[in-house]
């Protein structure tokens, strides 16, 4: 018997955690659309500085988490055996990207 997972095990582990229904996917999309509309509205309200940037960044991150979690199934894969590895692989890329950004900004900031 093979010691690797067969499709049946794979499918079983997928079925252990129910994915959203079609209606739920539509609701998530509507939520994303509303957040996008609110982002655009916020940018037109005349705020400046942190009052403008912080809410926009928060809304952007919320959208990011929703797309990654629901559409990319990370929330559901997390419930699979070893499924957190997918999230970790993706998160590792984001963390290194942020480190690159911080390093680049710091290099330009302090290398006058």
């Amino acid at each position, binding site marked *: 018997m093979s010691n*690797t*997972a067969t499709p049946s095990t794979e499918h079983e582990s997928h079925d252990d955690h129910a*994915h959203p229904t079609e209606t739920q996917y539509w609701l998530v*999309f509507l939520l994303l659309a509303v957040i996008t509309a609110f982002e*655009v509205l916020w940018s037109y309200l005349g705020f400046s500085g942190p009052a403008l940037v912080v809410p926009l960044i928060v809304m952007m991150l919320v959208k990011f988490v929703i*797309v990654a979690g629901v559409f990319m199934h990370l929330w559901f894969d997390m419930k699979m055996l070893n499924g957190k590895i997918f999230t970790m692989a993706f998160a590792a890329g*984001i963390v*290194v990207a942020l480190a690159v950004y911080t390093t680049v900004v710091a290099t330009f900031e302090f290398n006058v």
Partner: protein
Amino acid sequence: MSDAAVVAEQATDHVEDEHAGHATSLNLSNMKLAMWLFLGSECLLFGALISTYLLSKARFLTEILAGNPVVVDSISNPTLVEEMRAAGSVEPLFDIPFTSLSSFILLMSSLAMVLAHKAISEADYKNLRIWLGTTALLGSFFIAGQIAEFTAFKEEGLSFTGSLLGSAFFTLTGFHGIHVSGGIVMLMTLLVLSFKGKLNQDRAETVELVGLYWHFVDVVWVLIFTIVYLIP
């Protein structure tokens, strides 16, 4: 168990494993793990491009506000330069309502993609084709919008080689556009395979992998839309 039975069982496992994308000893699909690692590495690419854009924009604005003739002359539309100086940002350059519509289209394509994956998981091949086609079509609309935007920028005098801002902006959004175009090619390939009857429920993971790529492209646009277009 006889040797013949063991060999037959191993052969069956091998065929099944091929359909499962060669599952690892972690009980996870190798292909899916590889895709997530690829997407993680893509974060580095776009992280670097976004960083470069932000730094270039800051440098460009400083020079514009200081009235550096070389930078000012790099924009052929003097009215636009005055608007940027008055606003203290590059915001006058962008057509936010138009880009918002593009963002909405890309978000909608993500919904269509996830519905395509759901359809193949349920062996609903008719809806699979509808949603794959819809995703590709919406992606094409997004690319058409990007071409229109690039053309408008070119007319305003912002070119790829004319200024630091232009180079950084076109590199960032251009790379994203190339990713979207690559995704459209993948979607069209899946659509053709489906019409040929070569994309069945056993291959649901293939659609899922293309879906992961497509959603990633969408999620990168979520970042670009806010960081590049909405934050002055």
